């Protein structure tokens, strides 16, 4: 139960009347924010929003009601929080907001910069926003004459802030200095962790760019075989020529399917670089084609998946190198998952193999 002066009561009355406006604006603005972040490719961990409750507003007015002339002076009736994974994404999100809304710079605050060099604690960027006067047609129906607050911080900053509020601030009871000190030590540690996460992302991005450049330049022996490099390699359509040759057997159409599962197969075969994969394509394409010719030549099947080329390459390699039935079984286990039926396919290929010309060369 709060005891409010008549001025604060008048603000409360205005709030009750305007609450539907804030709620409608909350839905529309959050939707617009999500769309905008998706367009700019910024991945956020969460978007939270709330319209201040009557209880919370009354508490605020009881403490400092005289500070506000009207409801319009209270800028956090509608509050939105954007939580990012990475530290540098906080600034990217802020840039996106600057394009979307008019920012009340005088009342916005960057709490990240409020700390002295030897202090750690709450870190967040708070923007006080207003809808732009001239906004896009699809936003024109949003009726929101009031300012609203958007807080931006990382997931780790968010975790610290929530725990800090839970242990100290929200209870309204002063907590012992040693706990505050421990919380602030944690804030320093999380600040370092945030920086490390951002650094790891930057270094990974840099690594991917370097590998893509090496793949594009054809220096495949210098490129280790991993998920990123194999994807870059697949962009060059290394199996296309073989697939087209196989498709030509029955004038088949080729259905493109993801080839990333072959990464594990090539690694199992012993490939360490993209150069190793390229050599398999060079050395075993003829064998793979002969397998496809033998199997499809007497059928009228006129549809194949783009996985046929790499699949038959691996079969040719295993057969030619004496891997036999167990080698083929292992190959299918990797490619299709363990199954007793893989034995049947391995057995069938062993029977067929004497008819493959490349096996007799």
């Amino acid at each position: 139960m709060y005891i409010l002066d008549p001025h604060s009561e008048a603000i409360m009355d205005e709030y009750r009347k305007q609450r539907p406006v804030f709620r409608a604006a909350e839905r529309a603005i959050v939707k617009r924010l999500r769309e905008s972040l998706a367009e700019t490719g910024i991945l956020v961990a969460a978007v939270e929003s709330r319209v201040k409750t009557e209880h919370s507003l009354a508490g605020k007015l009881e403490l400092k009601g005289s500070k506000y002339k009207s409801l319009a002076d209270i800028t956090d009736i509608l509050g939105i929080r954007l939580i990012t994974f990475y530290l540098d994404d906080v600034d990217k999100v802020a840039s996106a907001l600057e394009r979307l809304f008019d920012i009340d710079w005088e009342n916005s605050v960057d709490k990240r910069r409020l700390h002295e060099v030897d202090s750690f604690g709450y870190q967040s960027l708070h923007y006080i926003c207003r809808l732009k006067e001239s906004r896009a047609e699809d936003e024109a129906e949003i009726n929101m004459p009031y300012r609203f607050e958007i807080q931006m911080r990382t997931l780790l900053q968010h975790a610290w802030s929530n725990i800090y509020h839970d242990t100290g601030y929200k209870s309204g009871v002063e907590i012992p200095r040693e706990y505050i000190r421990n919380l602030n030590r944690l804030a320093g540690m999380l600040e370092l962790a945030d920086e490390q996460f951002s650094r790891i992302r930057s270094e990974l991005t840099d690594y991917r760019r370097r590998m893509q450049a090496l793949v594009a330049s054809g220096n495949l022996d210098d490129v280790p075989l991993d998920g990123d490099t194999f994807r870059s390699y697949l962009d060059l359509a290394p199996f296309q020529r073989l697939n087209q040759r196989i498709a030509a057997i029955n004038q088949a159409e080729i259905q493109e399917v993801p080839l990333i599962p072959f990464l594990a197969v090539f690694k199992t075969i012993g490939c360490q670089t993209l150069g190793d994969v390229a050599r398999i394509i060079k050395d075993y394409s003829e064998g793979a084609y002969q397998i496809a010719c033998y199997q499809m030549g007497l059928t009228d099947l006129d549809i194949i998946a783009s996985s046929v080329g790499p699949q038959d390459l691996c079969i040719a390699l295993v057969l030619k190198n004496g891997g036999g039935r167990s080698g083929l079984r292992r190959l299918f286990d990797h490619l299709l998952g363990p199954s007793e039926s893989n034995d049947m396919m391995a057995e069938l290929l062993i029977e067929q193999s004497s008819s493959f010309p490349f096996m007799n060369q």
Partner: protein
Amino acid sequence: MNINIDNSNGVTTANLEGRLDTPASTEVAPCFEQLKEAAGGTVVLDCSKLSYISSSGLRLFLALRKETSVKGGKVIVRNISDNIRQVFMMTGFLNMFEIQ
């Protein structure tokens, strides 16, 4: 060619019986359209009584798979004979479906 469709426990199962050749594919295409309506969940194609599949039949399987990919469901191909498994292997379709 017969297809019996059964819905139970959130799983749609189509029991395929006979030869899925080109004429039969045209005949059962409406059944596959009906299966696409369940593409947001799990669709099981039980092939224990399917004796043959042609390219047209493979295309029906493929179209259903594409629909489930879009709608967030999946297709499970169950109980295929050795002959049909060979067809799936030589066309690369084995990698496209969850086969049980």
